């Protein structure tokens, strides 16, 4: 029996539940030939802003226990070059995998300009709105301010018919509040979570390892936090959730799915092994076969809480 991995979400069918996370797969093409992109659920591009951004000084990445710290600073080619140079490759080379464009801005108008600027282009399904980058000034502003988030999501909803997914920051006391704000203002889904802020110090030089001083922590070290926050977000609203954080195996992905995620994203694990996304996808299939489960969708949100649990 071949288990059914397909799910209908955001008005389309996802052939598989694994996507590549924003910032870890460039604009897709960089991994062509190394990762069977069109056999995955999809990918999320590097963040796109209205103007090109140059990013932060090095070091931009370093290893941390069970993961890494990064402060790239949203370096990207900007809206025009993305549309003319990056998007055509995705349109021409991905037939089955779905593409979300990760969108970032300093103001509501900047986010809206990216969305309206891309909306008539071909080659992608929808947007993942980045309100949660810890590595630029004001990067988490929209993700930690309830009124600002409501305004942003509402505005973007009015700019596009395409799916709008909001990528939430873990750095809030109750992620459920932000999940509900997204739902109430017309978002189609959530991505949980972005990186945690962190810092590494070089004790010989008595200086920060990262050029930006602080950065975002990702990798297996954050898996339990990601699972928890995904569960909190998924139970707080009725939007489909994409689970992100430290996934490197089918078992890891299934924790997110049981917590309520429909899809998952694999990021940092790609740096350890470019085969990580395929490995996760195969691991999910193997689990379903072994457990005699016919369809992945049966497991979504299938967490069994003990009777005494208070949610």
């Amino acid at each position, binding site marked *: 029996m071949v288990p059914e991995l397909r799910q209908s979400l955001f008005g389309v069918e996802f052939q598989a539940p694994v996507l590549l996370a924003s910032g870890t797969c460039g604009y897709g093409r960089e991994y062509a030939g190394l990762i069977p992109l069109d056999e995955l659920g999809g990918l999320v591009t590097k963040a796109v802003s209205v103007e090109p951004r140059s990013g932060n000084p090095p070091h931009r990445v370093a290893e941390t226990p069970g993961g890494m710290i990064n402060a790239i600073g949203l370096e990207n080619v900007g809206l025009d070059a993305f549309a003319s140079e990056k998007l055509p490759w995705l349109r021409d080379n991905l037939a089955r995998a779905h593409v979300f464009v990760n969108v970032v801005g300093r103001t509501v108008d900047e986010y809206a300009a990216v969305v309206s600027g891309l909306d008539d282009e071909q080659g992608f399904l929808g947007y993942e709105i980045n309100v949660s980058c810890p590595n630029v000034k004001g990067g988490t502003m929209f993700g930690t301010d309830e009124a600002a988030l409501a305004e942003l999501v509402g505005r973007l909803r009015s700019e596009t018919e395409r799916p709008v997914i909001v990528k939430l920051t873990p750095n809030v006391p109750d992620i459920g509040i932000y999940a509900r704000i997204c739902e109430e203002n017309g978002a189609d889904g959530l991505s949980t979570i972005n990186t945690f802020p962190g810092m590494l110090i070089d004790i010989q030089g008595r200086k920060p390892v990262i050029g930006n001083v602080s950065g975002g922590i990702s990798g*297996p070290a954050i898996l339990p936090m990601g699972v928890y926050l995904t569960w909190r977000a998924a139970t707080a609203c009725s939007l489909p959730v994409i689970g992100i954080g430290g996934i*490197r*195996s089918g078992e890891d992905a299934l924790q997110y799915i049981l917590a309520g995620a429909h899809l998952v994203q694999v990021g940092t694990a790609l740096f*350890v092994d470019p085969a990580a996304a395929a490995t996760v996808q195969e691991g999910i299939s193997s689990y379903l076969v072994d457990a005699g489960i016919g369809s992945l969708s049966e497991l979504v949100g299938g967490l069994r809480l003990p009777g005494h649990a208070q949610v």
Partner: protein
Amino acid sequence: MLVAIEPKAPDILSPIRHRAEVMANRRVATETWWLELDSPEIAGRAEWGQFVMIGFGLEHLAPPFLPRPFSVAWRAEDGRIGLLVRAFGVGSRRLAELRAGEHVLLLGPLGRPFRLEPGSRVVCVAGGVGLAPFLFLAGDARRQAFDVDLLYGELTADKVFDAGLIEELTGGPPIVWTEDGSLGRRGRVTEGLSVEGRVTVLACGPTPMLRALAGRAAREGFDLQVSVEEHMGCGVGTCQGCVVLGADGRWKKACTQGPVFYASELTWSPS
């Protein structure tokens, strides 16, 4: 015995990801190991100055979690590649501990290689384990009738990679410099560089060494290619982690736009 193979034309093939067996790992100087891996496909394609990402895979949570970039130091007809490993961090220390029969995860060959100009004399300037790319470049270039000098500097004699083995691998003796004069000539290896006639200078080593050479290249007007190092995430241009500052003020990715740059392509800020 390692037998050199001829370089192939550059190609745009995707890098290869595979699990490679450790064939040998032996200490060749203080804190320095010569690591041989079974990797026929990478051996068949690696060009001068290209690198591999070497790691332990997704199951491995103990440091090093992320793979590390290493210059391909040698490639042999029997499908082995050689890496020169100096143990000074968690990643390199773990590589130093590898034993024959263990496996590592390799991704490569990666990056932009050194380029030689026909008819030009070649001077390789190696600082420490910056020697690595020149072990196969110098021999290949000599077989292609280039006139090659290999200047090799270390702090002290105990760190010097076996000069007899260098001669065997590269087809000629290196000119060894140590800063304390305990072996070869005394001083910094950059002092040994004399530039006369048509010459291409290739350099790999610590950033201060590259910076000093870049200053001379700018003043004296010779061609200098440098292999740079920076913390790296993916090795293939997706994470944009490993940037160095270009002469145009834009960040350049060491992994795909480098690691070899013309010195004139980069900004050399004072240390």
